[in-house]
């Protein structure tokens, strides 16, 4: 994977997370940040090979067919050294 493809993946992640958190959108405080991410993604896109672009598209399409909960019902817990229980539990 080239640097451009890696950067594209990371920028995609930031964009999707920002949108999921409702931080982006026209007129929002995050609008400029969203525009910047899109611009940088565009730069990376044109640096990527055709095969990398196809792969990025394929993975995005693949993810649309996968379901997951909106949030995991889990919080972490402190485990002392030698402790014998898992470091997360179902949220109260």
């Amino acid at each position, binding site marked *: 994977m080239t640097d451009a493809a890696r950067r594209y*993946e*990371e920028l*995609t*992640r930031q964009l*999707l*997370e920002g949108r*999921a*958190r409702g931080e982006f959108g026209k007129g929002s405080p995050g609008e400029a940040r969203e525009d910047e991410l899109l611009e940088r993604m565009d730069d990376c896109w044109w640096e990527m090979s055709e095969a990398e672009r196809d792969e990025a598209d394929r*993975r*995005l399409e*693949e*993810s*649309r*067919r*996968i*379901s*997951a*909960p*909106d*949030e*995991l019902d*889990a*919080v*972490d*817990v*402190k*485990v*002392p*050294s*030698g*402790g*014998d*229980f*898992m*470091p*997360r539990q179902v*949220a109260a």
Partner: protein
Amino acid sequence: MYATAHRVVSPTTGAEGINAFHYLHGGYEWDGPPPPESMPETDPGTLFNDSVAVPPPGNRVRSYLDVVAPDGTPAREIERALADVTSRDVPGSFPAVWTSGRFWFRFGLELALVPVWRQELRLLLENVAAVLGRS
């Protein structure tokens, strides 16, 4: 052994990071798939080492990777097995559970991370490998 990495976010500061934990089962070995009694909900073993970016408790878990393998398994073997199984078996939903040889994997994440699930899995695995490497 049981190794796990969590992406967590603090509900108070908003700090986000990945914490990883390495438990030992104490020389308990197996040849085929991990036996039911080695599953983390039944017996995670005892905590041997950890790597904490956002101190527990009370952080919300956004994603996690659980690995069960015989004690002393090199990280590269785990990485190879997980890469192999995820290239063959793309899940229809999360959490996903995979068994490969002597290893068991469980990967869960929230909906917002699904479009980048492969990247997230890689990050969590890197953190698991790092905590094993330090042990």
